[in-house]
């Protein structure tokens, strides 16, 4: 973990959670941790510029918004094609995440994509479309059967215990 002051840890604890129910939320946070509103906003903006904060905004609940067909698709891509296939797959608007991971014994899949679709059939046909376009024919669609947990990471816990 990067070096943080106690004040910075308090700020992270506030903004990793839901914004206060206040028309001046940054002032409310500032009062809570003993900073000025300007200091709070400046630090958030600095962390955004540094890429420590990827974005600051609303997180929506997809299942409530018509993405019931979300699926993970694992692709078996020959080593020389990984870069090309990874970039090509990232170009689809319905693919939200694309990672390269190592293969494991009995599990030859090295590229992982999250496909967002309205239902499982649509997810299947989108995966077929990607397979046809990229020439990567060996893949596994892993449909979501149940969401066990979905929450934002708590980097700094209340009790200050290590994660």
């Amino acid at each position, binding site marked *: 973990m990067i070096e943080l002051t106690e004040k910075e840890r308090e700020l992270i604890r506030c903004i990793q959670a839901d914004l206060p129910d206040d028309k001046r939320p940054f002032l409310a946070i500032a009062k809570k941790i003993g900073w000025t509103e300007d200091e709070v906003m400046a630090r958030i903006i600095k962390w955004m510029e540094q890429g420590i904060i*990827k974005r600051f905004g609303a997180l929506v609940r997809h299942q409530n*918004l018509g993405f019931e067909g979300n699926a993970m698709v694992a692709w078996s891509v020959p080593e020389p094609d990984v870069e090309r296939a990874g970039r090509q797959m990232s170009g689809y608007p319905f693919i*939200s995440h694309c990672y390269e991971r190592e293969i494991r014994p009995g599990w030859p899949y090295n590229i992982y994509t999250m496909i967002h679709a309205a239902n499982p059939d649509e997810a299947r046909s989108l995966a077929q479309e990607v397979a046809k376009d990229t020439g990567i024919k060996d893949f596994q669609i892993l449909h979501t059967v149940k969401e066990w*947990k979905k929450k934002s990471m708590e980097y700094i816990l209340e009790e200050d215990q290590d994660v």
Partner: protein
Amino acid sequence: MDDIDKKIINHIQSRFPVQPEPYRAIAGHFGMTEEEVWLRIKRLRKRGLIRRIGAVFDSAGLGFYSTLVAVKTDPAMTEKVAEKINSLPGVTHHYQRDNAYSLWFTLTGADREKIDDTVLDIGKWAGVFDIMNLPANKTFKIKVDFQI
């Protein structure tokens, strides 16, 4: 949810204004009143369509280590194992999928050694046939806002 709600959600997913009066700023963008924007967002939060407004940190940027874990379970034990996984700190996204590797979750923590130890430990649980620790070698894309 009407078209105005959708416009507001799409706007504030990636661009919630970091300004003293963010709701007034959003209202200005759409030619609405602060009160109307405030009430609409309040309703969307209450209904759970917006689950949180805040910062999305880059784990690696904060110096955290994160991996994807896949667990092959005894089908009779899947639920028990899933509940136990859910109770571990650092588990954020956890899904059951239609595969012999039935449980897939992300595990994030302050250092790699601890994460690897946790994965080895889960591998010894009753009902766990196999476990794969799959950290990303390369991230091609992470897109977290969805136009609705």
